[in-house]
């Protein structure tokens, strides 16, 4: 079986559910090589870290796994703030949710148009990571 290992400089996982975080980490392991995987309990924590990195000119995450329902700052609010940061580097954002609410899907569609980064929509459970979740080849070509 041919497995492509992708080298990723930095990954953010934003989710308040430890089991989901565990799962994401687990499915990432065989497909991605990354020394900088950061876990955040909510949007606020992730945003604060991201902001700090842009200010200090540190490495911006290439990939973000983002939960929608979180306390303090949910996924949508995080996205809003992220767009406002006006980051030059391209980020692949994977929205992870157990929601099957059509409203969430609609919202994702709206965000996809105004977000300069790649925005994927993934329903739980996560069994494996697609190449498109880590790479924007499809978009770039």
């Amino acid at each position, binding site marked *: 079986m041919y497995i492509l290992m992708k080298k990723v400089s930095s990954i953010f996982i934003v989710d308040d*559910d*430890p*089991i*989901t975080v*565990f*799962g994401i980490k687990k499915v990432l392991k065989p497909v991605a090589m990354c020394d900088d995987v950061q876990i955040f309990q909510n949007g606020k924590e992730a945003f604060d870290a991201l902001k700090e990195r842009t200010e200090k000119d540190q490495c911006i995450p290439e990939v973000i796994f983002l939960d929608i329902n979180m306390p303090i700052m949910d996924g949508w609010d995080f996205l809003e703030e992220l767009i406002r940061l006006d980051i030059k580097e391209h980020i692949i954002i994977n929205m992870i949710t*157990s*929601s099957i609410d059509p409203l969430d899907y609609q919202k994702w569609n709206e965000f996809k148009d105004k977000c300069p980064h790649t925005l994927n929509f993934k329903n739980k*459970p996560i069994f494996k990571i697609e190449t498109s979740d880590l790479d924007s080849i499809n978009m770039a070509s």
Partner: protein
Amino acid sequence: MKAVERIAQHYLLKQLPKATALVAMDGMVSDASDSWLNIFGIAPKDSIGVNIFALYGESDALREKLMESRTFSLRHCIGKEMDKRWLESTFAPWYDEKENIIGTIIQTDDISREVEKERELEKVNHILKTKSEVSQVGCWEYTIETEELFWCDETKKIHHVDPSYTPNVTDAIAFYKQGYSRNKIAMLVHSAINEGTPFNKKLTIVTQDGEEKWVSAAGKPVLENGKIVKLFGTIQDINVQVTTETRIKHHQQLLTALIDNLPLNVFVKDLDSRKILVNKAECQYLEKSAKDLIGKTDFDLYETEVAKISREEDLEVIRTLKPMLGKETISIKKNGKATNFLTSKIPLFDLEGKISGLIGIGMDITAMKKKEDQLRNLINITSVQNKKLINFAHIVSHNLRSHSANFSMLLKFLSEEENETEKAHIMEMLNQASDSLLETLENLNQVVDINTNVTLSKQPLNLNLSISKVRQNLSAFLEKNKVNIINNIPADMMVWSVPAYLDSIILNLVTNAVKYSSPDRNPIITMDAKKGEKTLIFSVSDNGMGIDLERYGDKIFGMYKTFHNRKDAKGIGLYIIKNQIEAMGGSITVNSEVDKGATFNVYFNEESK
């Protein structure tokens, strides 16, 4: 002797007071009284040689008449224009002793005055006849002794009989329509004859050719020496008037019956908005008689504000001449009773087409309005319930889905995992997932309970007693957090609530206030209660972290919504008490300022028990 006789005879004739002349066979006047000569303007000395054919003109006809040797009269006139006089002469044969006709004896009367009178009478009769024709008033006269009945031409015309018709009492009465009219006229005539009672009555006759018509029959006795000898009366054809009147009355009655029995309030107003007609429904609504309402304005009957609006509507209709149709209005009577109407105001024009007022029609829609409100209320409740249900369904599906997703993910990992340590780790995770699923189910169950437990009934509870109970249960927790509770609630304040819900509300609000207290200061919780008209407001204020309401305002009472990074924030407490409060018909609001504190206001519904 002969001469003496002659002279005596001549003298005698001359002196006769009645104008007399003796005329020979040839028409020559042989002798005449002075009065006769005077009539014709002949001096006594000229009397001899006057020929009567010259005096009477029409000589041939007269001559022939005279030849018949019979007495006859002749009317003639002499003079011209102003001096014209009417005379009447009687010609009688003049016999001698041997019964031989020797001439004619003429006696002449001046009948100018009689002729004048006759003419006058004729004129009066003519006027009378014309008058009775024009006014269609006929007259009749009944002579009691002879039982003779006289009808004038007009009377005959009214009965549609020939001018030659001769009436009698029996037939005359038979002309009246069988039944009331005939009985009545017979009775009236009878009592007029016997008691002298005059009468005047509207009755129906049937004419000769079978036409029914209304007449006004009048009669009165004519007395002679205190005795009733005649009846004189009139008869007038009033068929047109009566039928018109009847038709108008019929229309009026129809209109009145219609207006009065309409299940609508109907009124007519003049240009000054004074009522000039009201129907039964309007009278009943205003609890006044029609007489008391006529001439009144809305200012006399309704609250000033309502009357002002109504007057403005009236003026608008009068000004624009356009009807106001089916407008929803509210009338508030002086006693404060309000009624909803569907009102129409239609301009009313007089016969010349000028605006003279307006017709108002009002339909009482109070009951309908109430039903509508009830229905709207029900729809609101239903739609709120529906929204809640959809929301709840989302919560359920989301929460259960997230757990099931975790299960299926972990199970897949487990099945693929070979490393024993990792397997144990996954198993631990599965246990965690199972625990949190159970907890979630428990929470959801609690919410379902609140929304389905309709059997729980509210009862009056002492608010302070419930607070004390909660404080006792939380005493260790409160002490540990150094909480100062300021209770401003009057000792006897009662609140209508489900006991368990009241405890839950107090418990959640107090623990929330402590949980989200500021790390910089000891928590102070202030409790207040205020009784409103239909609600009791229970307030819990703290000096804690506060909540950014602009950001989270719409989510604060949502399920699993937490806004502070605290390990024990589960986002279920406020969601549950909101459900409990709403299940009791109340509501909850929040005011807050970040880092100052928050105030939760619970509105207990004191109306629906």
